């Protein structure tokens, strides 16, 4: 079997195994006696210090968030999570509308992004003609490279008016019965934020999905094909089915990304701390509220409340990303997800 096809098969197998260079035995440094050992130790310490710094930073994040939100953390305690008031003047705060906004906008984003990401990932890995593969994956990568603030800029001046003039009226007309598409159409609201978030999270979900799909060994596809499965049936039975844990992880990863997005969301969501049933209504997310209000915080309590929002966001994304990584790791065996990660 010529080199190309064979390496292709071998590569597919290698991808499932985590490379493990044998721990190199400490080389004989007796010729340069104490000198070599000292240099080795110093180098090792420096390297370990870097790794330690990494862990320290995460610890610092947690520490600073907790200390700086001390005022409201102790004052309102857990009720902070369930109250809907946001009154800087009366110094009365509750995070519920923001948690709601974060979750809803992210879920709308996933609803739109997941089928598109899966389709794109499947297309690029399985169906795409060779010459199209690189340009198409570059396109997806570029989508990930566009900064949040530019998405927001485009959102304000292009997407929001588009939603307001064309999309929302159509939705209200045909889908209004669901109760989700009613009320005044500003263009700036939960739905528009969801759409922008969908575009932004799409490349992340797609790239991780690509990884896990490629990790499905070729013999699995062949087994399905040999049974007389059509192209789609092979994808469904051998590829998607085998990769489903990883795909789920990719989706959760996308969720984590969506929840943390700040600039684009704050520029199109309307920044109103309310819980409304309609997706047309303006909303507020944890991230966007911090961006919007932090520098204008009127009091120490206000600042503390905003930092506590950051803490909640940190905790949420921490949990979500941990779950996602564990799921993805179980498929790719710990190899770092490349490109967009």
């Amino acid at each position, binding site marked *: 079997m010529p080199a190309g096809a064979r390496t292709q098969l071998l590569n597919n197998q290698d991808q499932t195994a985590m490379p493990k260079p044998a721990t*190199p035995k400490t080389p004989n440094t007796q010729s340069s006696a104490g000198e070599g050992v000292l240099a080795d130790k110093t180098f090792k310490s420096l390297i370990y210090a870097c790794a330690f710094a990494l862990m320290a930073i995460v610890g610092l*994040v947690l520490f600073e968030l907790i200390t700086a939100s001390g005022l409201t953390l102790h004052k309102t305690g857990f009720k902070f999570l369930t109250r809907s008031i946001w009154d800087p003047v009366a110094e009365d705060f509750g995070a519920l509308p923001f948690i709601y906004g974060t979750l809803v906008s992210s879920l709308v984003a996933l609803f739109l992004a997941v089928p598109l990401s899966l389709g794109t990932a499947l297309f690029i890995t399985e169906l795409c003609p060779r010459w199209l593969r690189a340009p198409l994956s570059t396109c997806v990568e570029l989508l990930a490279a*566009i900064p949040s603030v*530019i998405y927001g800029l485009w959102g304000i*001046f292009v997407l929001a008016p588009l939603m307001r003039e064309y999309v929302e009226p159509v939705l209200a007309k045909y889908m209004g019965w669901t109760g989700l598409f009613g009320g005044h159409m500003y263009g700036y609201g939960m739905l528009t934020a969801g759409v922008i978030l969908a575009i932004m999270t799409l490349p992340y979900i*797609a790239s991780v999905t690509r990884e896990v799909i490629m990790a499905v060994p070729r013999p699995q596809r062949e087994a399905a094909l040999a049974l007389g499965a059509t192209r*789609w049936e092979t994808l469904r039975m051998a590829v998607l089915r085998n990769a489903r844990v990883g795909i789920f992880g990719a989706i959760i990863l996308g969720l984590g990304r969506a929840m943390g997005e700040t600039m684009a969301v704050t520029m199109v969501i309307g920044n109103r701390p309310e819980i409304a049933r309609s997706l047309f209504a303006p909303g507020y997310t944890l991230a966007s509220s911090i961006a919007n209000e932090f520098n204008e915080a009127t009091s120490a309590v206000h600042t503390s409340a*905003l930092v506590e929002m950051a803490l909640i966001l940190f905790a949420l994304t921490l949990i979500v990303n941990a779950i996602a990584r564990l799921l993805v790791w179980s498929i790719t065996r710990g190899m770092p997800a490349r490109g967009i990660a």
Partner: protein
Amino acid sequence: MPKLISETLGFRRRAVNAIALTLIASAAIVVTTPLIAILGTIVYRGFSGLHWSFLTQIPAPPGEVGGGMANAIAGSGMILGLACLVGIPLGIGSGVYLAEYGRNRWGNIVRFTADVLNGVPSVVIGITVYALVVATQKHFSMLAGAIALGIIMIPTVCRTTEEVLLMVPQAIREAAFGLGIPQWRTTLSVVLPTASSGIVTSVMLAFARIAGETAPLLFTTLGNGFWNLKPNQPTAALPLQIYTYAISAYDDWHDQAWTGALVLIALIIAIVITVRFAANRGALKGAY
């Protein structure tokens, strides 16, 4: 013996196959549409404002037409440069740790932490650095912004460095040891140079990522309407400026926001395309 299933492929299966494959292909088309729309709009609305004055003047007072984003571009340049001083060494260092010393349980904890840090929203990092640096120093500064962006860089650089280092064959390390070269020298002079192109591309990707970050800068460098290149003062930055202008009430500032966006995205795309090019030449083996 009568067969349980027919010999030919039924209509239903063929139809399902055709529909599914069409949907999948159309997903790819739908995905490219917003990209073209966004990039197109940026060029369309930003290009006309790309005068020399845009790149050399500082903002005019609010309401007045004219001026530019020179201070923001320069400010971004400095902040990003300082951020690299923080992010690159720590990123490569922890990457080296993970690849050379971290193939064990402790390494897995560090690896996991790197992934966790990667997933922390940039706004949270901004708040942390605010509490850590700005609140302590009692003023906003370029340095604080650089620290925040540097922290954001670390996990990307770390994980990609780990990956490229793992691709360096163990045989090379062993050859060096066999020659009596100590561990630290091997890593520095043999392994890292072999993986250097991959590390460079990872740094570039991380750079492209932080070049567009706005949220952390909101609470650290704050922004500045005038020139400032002193590290301990608030500084203008390109993404910040775009944001401020975009949400302002002035049409001229809106137009300038588009031009600023054009400059920013041009830089980022240049980096991404260069990395792609390098990857195709084998720098990041098996990347795509």
